[in-house]
């Protein structure tokens, strides 16, 4: 068992446990924090796979942005201490069964499918990504880049419109 294997198993265990806790904890604020740790675990996994740029993005956007946003929304919508209501038993069982069945099934599929082990080095430094990002020839992602930016703009406008739609008497 090499050091990296151990590290990998540690990280994945960490991610999964944090995920389970985030999904099952009764307190909403605590579940947000578990989510935070789980995302950090994933970033660690990226680092382990030494795709640093993705890890950085992961940390900046997910951990920095989205989780913070979620925490803000928690404060806005309810007292963080209160217990969250339990889902109806039937649905929990059904959910659990569905999930287990899904996991087992995919596990089986992945297991059966012999992935070829290619050990070529994976050059993914930021420059190459940057070039590809704005490159317009074959394999370039200029178009998706522009589309995504429009999407983000639309999302921002949307959020503002939705969130700000306060009727005068309601204020």
């Amino acid at each position, binding site marked *: 068992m090499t050091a990296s294997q151990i590290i990998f198993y540690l990280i994945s265990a960490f991610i999964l446990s944090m995920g389970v806790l985030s999904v099952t904890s009764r307190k909403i604020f605590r579940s947000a924090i578990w989510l935070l740790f789980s995302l950090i675990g994933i970033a660690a996994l990226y680092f382990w796979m030494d795709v640093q740029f993705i890890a950085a993005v992961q940390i900046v956007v997910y951990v920095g942005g989205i989780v913070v946003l979620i925490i803000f929304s928690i404060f806005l919508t309810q007292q963080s201490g209160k217990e969250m209501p339990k*889902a109806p038993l039937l*649905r929990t069982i*059904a*959910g659990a069964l*569905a999930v287990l*069945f*899904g996991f087992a*099934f995919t596990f089986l*599929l992945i297991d059966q499918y012999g992935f070829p082990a290619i050990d070529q080095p994976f050059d993914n430094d930021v420059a190459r990504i940057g070039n590809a990002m704005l490159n317009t020839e074959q394999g370039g992602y200029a178009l998706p880049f522009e589309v995504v930016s429009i999407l983000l703009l639309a999302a921002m406008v949307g959020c503002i419109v939705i969130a700000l739609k306060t009727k005068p008497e309601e204020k």
Partner: protein
Amino acid sequence: MNYSSYIALIPLLPLAAFVLLGLFGRKYFNQSAGIIATMLLLVAAGLSLYTAYQYFFVNGKVGDAYQSITAVKYTWLTFSENVSIDMGILLDPISVMMLVVVTFVSLMVHIFSLGYMKGEERFATYYAFLGLFTFSMLGLVVSSNLFQIYMFWELVGASSYLLIGYYFQKPSAVAASKKAFIVTRFADLGFLIGILILAFYGESLDFNTIIHNLTTQQSSQFLAITSASFLGVSALTWGLVMVFMGGAGKSAMFPLHIWLPDAMEGPTPVSALIHAATMVVAGVFLVARLFPVFSINSDALTVVTIIGVTSALFAAIIACTQTDIKRVLAYSTMSQIGYMMFALGVSGYGGENARLTDSVGQGLGYTASMFHLFTHAFFKSLLFLGAGAVIHLVHSNEMKDMGGLRKLMPITHISFLIACLAIAGIWPFAGFFSKEEILLAAYNKSMVVYVIALLTSGLTAFYMFRLYFSIFWNKEAAVHDHHHGEGTLSMKLPLILLAVCSVAAGFIHFGNYVSSDGTALASEFHLSFAAAPLALGIGGILLAMWLYKTANDKPERLATALGGLYKAAYKKFYIDELYLFITKKLVFNLIGRPAAWIDKNIIDGLMNGIAAATGWISNLIKTLQSGKVQNYLLYFFGGIAALVIIFIYIWKP
């Protein structure tokens, strides 16, 4: 010898009367309807007498047998190549005889109704229906096709329905007409099935062809019909019995007689025409028409005889106890027709192989029956018209309201007496000769039938003279003073004419005109044989005189002495109640109501059930859209899982 020039006129003239008076009667001819109808019928009667003269005396006889001439014939409705209804006029001894009888009696009734029905609001419609009836009766008599006779058979039934229900304001008249039509319709069902059987095996609907096909032993149709059998009885017997059932229904024979007494609800001249002389003998005529086929099948003939004899005896017994004079006459008609039926039943066919010692042929029954039909028409219609005159005077049907009317109504009294003597079978009058021939024919065939017939003739004499004495003698006339006498001349003339006929008809040597195979039938007259019925007749008269000549309590004491039998006879042996029970309880409650209930609840319920089921299912599906997002997720995931499994494992393209 072409009859077709005028023969078709005989049935069509009354039809013209019907159409004319039916459509325009109420508005234009309300008063003169009677005259028009009577004139038209007079012409028809004249024509039929002329035809009779032509047929019997001038050219009907070829060789020594009267031919059956088909005067007119054209196809009316084709079913298949050789089976088609074609309207035609067939002239042979019985149909010409019937032509004369029907037109003459109808003329008498028309004349009588001029006086009797004067002042009725629907006077024109009355004569229209009389015209329709006479047309359909004449059509029935001369028809040459089995289906044509069925058509006129139904028309006769319908016109009798209309005439019985003439006083439609009276619920009893409406019920009586409905009962008459339904019972005869039930019998017609049998007749129709009989026709279908005979037509299917006889492969034709024309009388001559059917009779030829089914009587020649070696013909393919004969073999087919006798070989085919259903429940052990040969198809020929089935066919004939079914046809006889139709006849029995129309002639009010034993099981299907319940409608005749109630049919007295109609005006009396109608009863005189329909329920005495014409319609009720249609059954006898039908059996006579198909007699050659009947004669080769002994089972059918036995059925006819049994039904005939039972009806004769049964009706005579009931007649002795009835108090309504029209009901007495109705039962007496039924009894006399019973005579005619069993006369046919005991008759053989043709005259050659005379079995009896002297040369009286086997076909005596047939001639006797027709002769009795001929004479019966006259004196029975006379009786009814006489009763009509009496009712017209007394305005009630019950015997107890009558008595001692001989001085007030001399002509009616004399004519009624003549008719009673005739029907009782006293020597000079017509009834004696025809009944004696029937008794002779019965004597030849079977002793049992002869004895019963003899007994019934005694009973007939008794109840007729019971009726006569209670109307004209018994107690003094209790009629209120301002009565309008015996009625106009138009009511008296028919009585006189019919009385003359009741006497004269007896002396006609019927044998050499009407016989089963057309050849003359020598029927000698045996004084010794005639003694027995004559004695019984006179005995009956004396008994009636003894009981009813003067008002006394002997009849009541006799009635209590007889006790149960008298009561049962008075109640018509409870057959009406039996029929009512069957129709009301069994048919209506056990078949009609459940049928309607099943239709409403089960089948209709089924349809509404389907509608409700769709509603329920759609409700069920509706709850899937529960609005809960997570349920949708679950269904969504379930769908994906299913698709994945199918496309990976099951679906092998």
